[in-house]
């Protein structure tokens, strides 16, 4: 792990990690405003506020042409993979020019140009799909890898066992990431999970497991770098268990009253990944003014993009019937 006082490359990388986290948070804060204040986002959004270190740390370790499968809480992963935030905002608002043409919304954001093959509205469903993407890559002799991110709630679903077993049996180039925010929707995961949980289950299937403090972006990034290098070298799948914390409710509308009083506040105060990286950079000698500039630039970027997205029209009505199927297409015969 990088220590304060390392050379300029490390400093630049650490700043880039902070900048990405700031951009993710600014994106989601704007998205929440757009949902609650402006009523521009109509469907549910699932913020990853407090979990940005996972997105920033892992995605810096992969290439643009590597594959990503994500979850309903996937804005951060998608942005960090390199997706265009304007197209993402348009998607959240259901507008023309959204990355999915306004057909998917927050829970189905995908940007195939940067290898992001979809967020998923079904918990755990992306695990087997990501394993399959890696299977396809191996079959065609590609050196690309897949990153398959899911939450702690997913480890109690069947596809967790089926997908990990599959990847291990065929020695596929896939990095599984359990981004453990400790909550399965509105239930504390450990109260409904037997045994030692995610890492132990993955280890039982023979996957090398690395556990990290998922709110320490430097630690996440370093672990991801090493794991991705091994996976790309053909050593088979690995499992990253990143322990983090969901600072918001399950959706932006969920006040999370089921949580013990003070729990979220304590995490925000003491364990926020952005705050921690700012402190780390300050120790490294980065000035408060520079940190403030990074913060302000992210805010300004996302506020401007949301405004631009809101000025975009809704998609043409007839696109409700396009891209369903070629044979028996509803474009010819919807009813």
């Amino acid at each position, binding site marked *: 792990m990088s220590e304060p006082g390392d050379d300029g490359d490390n400093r630049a990388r650490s700043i880039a990690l902070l900048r990405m986290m700031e951009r993710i948070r600014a994106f989601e804060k704007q998205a929440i405003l757009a949902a609650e204040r402006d009523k521009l986002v109509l469907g549910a959004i699932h913020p990853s506020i407090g979990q940005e270190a996972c997105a920033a740390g892992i995605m810096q370790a992969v290439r643009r042409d590597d*594959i990503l*499968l994500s979850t309903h809480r996937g804005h951060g992963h998608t942005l960090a993979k390199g997706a265009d935030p304007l197209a993402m905002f348009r998607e959240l608002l259901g507008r023309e020019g*959204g*990355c*999915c*043409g*306004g*057909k*998917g919304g927050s829970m*189905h954001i*995908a*940007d*195939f140009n940067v290898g992001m*093959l*979809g967020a*998923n*509205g*079904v918990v755990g*469903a992306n*695990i*087997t*799909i*990501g*394993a*399959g*993407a*890696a*299977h*396809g*890559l191996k*079959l*065609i002799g*590609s050196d690309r890898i*897949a990153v398959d991110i899911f939450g702690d709630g997913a480890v109690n679903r*069947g*596809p967790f066992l*089926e*997908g990990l*077993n*599959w990847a291990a*049996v*065929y020695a596929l180039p896939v990095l599984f990431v359990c981004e453990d925010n400790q909550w399965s929707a509105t239930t504390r995961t450990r109260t409904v999970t037997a045994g030692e949980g995610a890492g132990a289950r993955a280890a039982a299937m023979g996957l090398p497991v690395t556990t990290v403090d998922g709110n320490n972006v430097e630690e996440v990034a370093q672990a991801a770098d090493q794991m991705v290098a091994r996976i790309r070298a053909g050593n088979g799948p690995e499992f990253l268990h990143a322990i983090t914390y969901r600072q918001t409710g399950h959706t932006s509308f969920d006040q999370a009253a089921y949580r013990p009083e003070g729990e979220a506040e304590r995490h925000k105060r003491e364990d926020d990944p952005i705050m921690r990286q700012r402190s780390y950079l300050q120790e490294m000698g980065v000035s408060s003014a520079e940190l403030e500039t990074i913060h302000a630039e992210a805010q300004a970027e996302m506020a401007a993009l949301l405004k631009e997205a809101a000025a975009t029209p809704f998609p043409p009505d007839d696109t409700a019937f*396009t*891209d*369903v*199927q*070629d*044979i*028996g297409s*509803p474009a010819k*015969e919807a009813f």
Partner: protein
Amino acid sequence: MAEKMTYVEASREALREAMQSDETVWCLGEDLGRGSVFGQYLGLQEEFGPDRVVDTPISEAAIMGAALGAAMVGTRPVVEMRFSDFALCATDELVNQIAKARFMFGGQSRAAMVIRKPTGMWRSSAAQHSQSLESWYTHIPGLVVVCPATPQDNYSLMKAAIAADDPVVYFEHKNIWGMEGEVNRAHTVEIGKAAIRRAGADVTIVSWSDTANLAEQAGARLAEEGISAEVIDLRSLWPWDKEAVTASVARTGRLIVAHESVRAGGFGGEVAATIAEAVPGARIRRLGAPRSLIAYAPNLEDQMRVTVDMIAQAAREMTND
């Protein structure tokens, strides 16, 4: 030039040819190296190797989900579900993921694949290995549903299904694996086009899968009695050939839809309702299984069958008055 093939050989030949001409085509499922349950893959692993004819764990959700991921990076999987009943273990993967991957990502993705589901009653296999659930999949936008009934169609439609850029749910009937017929490798079939198995003027009998073979036998029997039945094998249920059926019923004025699956909620209801709207005054009958379960004992299993006699009797009754 036509050659003799069985139903199981026909789709195997189609798959073999597709794998020879396109190296992105591969298949995955349980026990494929040993040919799978019914010999559908015999010899293919020897020819194409274990990476393209993949023996999988008994893990339907992973088989189906992995096929989607692999399709999204540009390969063309052929998924084997062993028995259509077992595909229910992968319902989310098929219905929520594969069927929607193209639309909900705004057309960025295709899910070009064939999902093979051996279907129907076969030798006292009881309630979990005998069902005909094809109508379920017609209800899912995004999916193509194909039900071949002859060796020629199993050859030509398998080729069309592998060539399609859509996910094709492909029902092969377990009772006719050994059915022999002439197969012309040059003969193509467009998915969505019915086959007129027998031309006739008095009554139209619409069916698919193995029941289409029973309908053809009923048509022959009726001809001996002086009743001219037109027998239409839909061959695919989505899309289905409304034009052919409408044109036929417009001439005959009578429609019988017969299928092996449970009558209530069966696709026969969709055909009947569509024709009732398209051909006012048409008389319509539906034949399907009672809404009960398929049992092991042969006499109980038989209670669930739509037979040649039942189809012929329905035609007699309709043409009598």
